[in-house]
């Protein structure tokens, strides 16, 4: 061991220099990871807990909102500042920042902000809350001002609460959103369930395949291994579409089963959960087979023979000698499959039904369609936290297995 007390001083220096040299070699990669991966991820995640739109477009209003106690309606001083800044930000073309941010929280705020700013520009007085309420009655509602206050920043709980179907009400208390709007907790649980089932299906299907590959001589195992890898060379879209052709109502599989007489009416195999499980298991299977194959390959065949010669039945030899040694490979494979499955959304979108969409689909929607990156970041955090816990659990699981 380097650095252990009995090592002579010269040796310690040498190993220190060696460590420095190794670090120098790894440093570019670490730097690359930090700049190319960690920093962007952290910057994106930060959008889920910070609120800068209102403070950027209306700095004085944001300050006044933070000082306001948040009860009822604010005083006319705040309304006056808001009126002035609305007018200024309309001219500076920054209204969209606030309009969209407020609209995430209270639908209709977008047109409210645009219409009010236009009215002020045309000369409508904006000296008091009553003046604003004359432009649009919603300025006379405490809930509208509470929405503004929640967006004043610099930190916000809005996105994180929304990602678990909660929100702050006008009194600043956390409440559930209306039942017909509550969707993310369900999608998150569904995402974990689908990923877990896919990992399990991959394990059930992949274990015998890996065993077969590991026990065959190389001249048979290598071509078979290429077959396992083959799906990687086809685009995910093509593979998924191929499953649709096979599984649809008048598809290959249903026609075959009908012709043989096994079923009376076509089975619903696609555009539902079954289709999602089948297509995702197929796409992810190699990720389980490969690590498992590697582990199985390292188990000497002599051990099973030794177990038999000591009187174990084949089943007992497998369960007591072979299987425990494959658990690290199995666990690694299942964790890889589970983790990759969590991020899927194109496959469920193409072969799933209405109730089979996964959380990444919502993240993509907020990122690309509506530019609500705060919400996208909060949902990503929601997906990331249990995943981090899972990885630690996985490490623990792998480490406790006897080598």
């Amino acid at each position, binding site marked *: 061991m380097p650095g252990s007390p009995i090592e002579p001083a010269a040796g310690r220096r040498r190993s220190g220099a060696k460590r420095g040299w190794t670090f120098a070699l790894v440093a570019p990669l670490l730097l690359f990871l930090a700049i190319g991966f960690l920093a962007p991820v952290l910057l994106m995640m930060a959008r889920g807990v910070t609120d800068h739109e209102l403070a950027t477009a209306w700095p004085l209003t944001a300050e006044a909102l933070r000082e306001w106690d948040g009860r009822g309606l604010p005083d006319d001083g705040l309304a006056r500042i808001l009126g002035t800044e609305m007018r200024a930000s309309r001219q500076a073309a920054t209204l969209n920042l606030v309009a969209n941010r407020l609209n995430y929280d209270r639908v209709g705020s977008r*047109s409210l902000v645009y219409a009010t700013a236009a009215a002020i520009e045309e000369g409508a007085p904006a000296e008091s809350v009553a003046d604003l309420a004359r432009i649009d009655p919603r300025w006379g509602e405490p809930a509208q001002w509470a929405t503004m206050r929640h967006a004043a920043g610099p930190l916000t709980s809005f996105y994180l609460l929304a990602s678990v179907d909660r929100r702050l009400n006008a009194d600043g208390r956390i409440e559930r959103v209306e039942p*017909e709007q509550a969707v993310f907790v369900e999608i998150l649980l569904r995402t974990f369930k689908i990923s877990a089932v896919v990992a399990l299906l991959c394990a059930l299907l992949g274990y015998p395949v890996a065993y077969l590959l590991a026990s065959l001589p190389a001249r048979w195992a290598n071509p078979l291994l290429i077959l396992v890898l083959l799906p990687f060379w086809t685009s995910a879209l093509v593979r998924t579409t191929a499953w649709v052709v096979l599984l649809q109502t008048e598809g290959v599989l249903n026609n075959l089963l009908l012709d043989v007489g096994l079923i009376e009416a076509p089975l619903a195999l696609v555009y539902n959960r079954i289709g999602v499980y089948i297509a995702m298991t197929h796409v992810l299977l190699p990720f389980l087979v490969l690590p498992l194959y590697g582990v199985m390959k390292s188990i000497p065949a002599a051990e099973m023979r030794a177990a038999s010669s000591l009187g174990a039945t084949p089943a007992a030899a497998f369960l007591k000698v072979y299987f425990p040694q494959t658990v690290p490979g199995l666990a690694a494979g299942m964790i890889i499959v589970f983790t990759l499955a969590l991020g899927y959304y194109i496959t469920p979108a193409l072969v799933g039904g*209405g109730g089979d969409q996964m959380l990444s689909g919502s993240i993509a929607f907020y990122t690309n369609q509506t530019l609500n990156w705060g*919400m996208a970041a909060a949902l990503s955090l929601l997906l990331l936290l249990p995943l981090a816990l899972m990885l630690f659990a996985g490490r623990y699981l792998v480490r406790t297995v006897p080598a």
Partner: protein
Amino acid sequence: MTGLRRLLAWLALPAALIGLTGCSGESEPRPLTVVGWGGSSQEAHRRAYWQSFTRATGIRLQEDTWHGGVGVIRTKVLGGDTSWDVVQVETEDLILGCEEGLFEPLEWSSLGGRDAFIPTAVHDCGVGAMLWSYLIGWDGDRIEGPGPRTWADFWDVERFPGRRGMRRTPKYTLEFALMADGVPASQVYPTLRTPAGIDRAFRKLDALKPNVVWWSSISQVPDLLGSGEVAMSVTSPGRLIVANRTEGRNFRVSWDGNIYAVDYWVILSNSPRKAEAAQLLRHMTLPENQMRLPQYIPTGLTSRRAGELIDPRLRLDTPSDPNNMTNALELDANFWVEYGDQLTQRFNAWLAH
């Protein structure tokens, strides 16, 4: 331990090299890049505009494709990626991107003035590329006779048994539900702007829900119809009519109560080739060039002059034919910019129960 460390060191070397070269290979001059939606629409633009543009000006064009979503463009502009110049965008993308300064404001005088175009095709940051619609499509070999005509027919699973294909978004779906419930086109968005109107649309959808196959990409529709998975589907007519022409299919469409919208050409604000990009926009909006487009894909034209001069037969399958505009509804993109988050959330919750 040392073995592992040595291995790590060897692994780090190529990774570091890739990292270094990746950072430096940026200044390569690239041709003017135009980004479309792929498939038959991109093919049509290439044949109608892009090939003749390079012939006429000598400016080489490079193509790319995307599937919409202004977030992609925001990422590019924020991240300093200047690989795109001219992009075809949907109306919501245009509104959000223009507000954010992602698109270059257009010089309308060089495009022949705002009056040279139909009103919906004119925007500060974009000029109309094509006029398209969503409507009812079905396979004429599977449903005989006149087939469905209105959205009420689409909802009528007793007269027309079989499943229905619909796009898995509240956009279009809620509008069609209200029209099926008897709301006239002019009242659809005013109704949707009230909580009671939204409830009404979802109630109408409840009735059809067990019979719906939800698709996520328009390219799924010809297959869904052709394989009999659904009896009829919400679709854009272009792909079905192209399939009729090229694959001998017998797809049919009903225009009654269609929703139409315009796609726009925009120039990205960080484009290093804005002058050439403006030249391309001018080329694509000249009436004599626009008139070529419907030969390759059935689409409505945005230039008034081109719409007047076009062969009426090429107008038959497009929103430019007045006969196709019965009860038609123009997509209200401002409504969807404002209500998109809320209604998508509610729609997804509704789908799961």
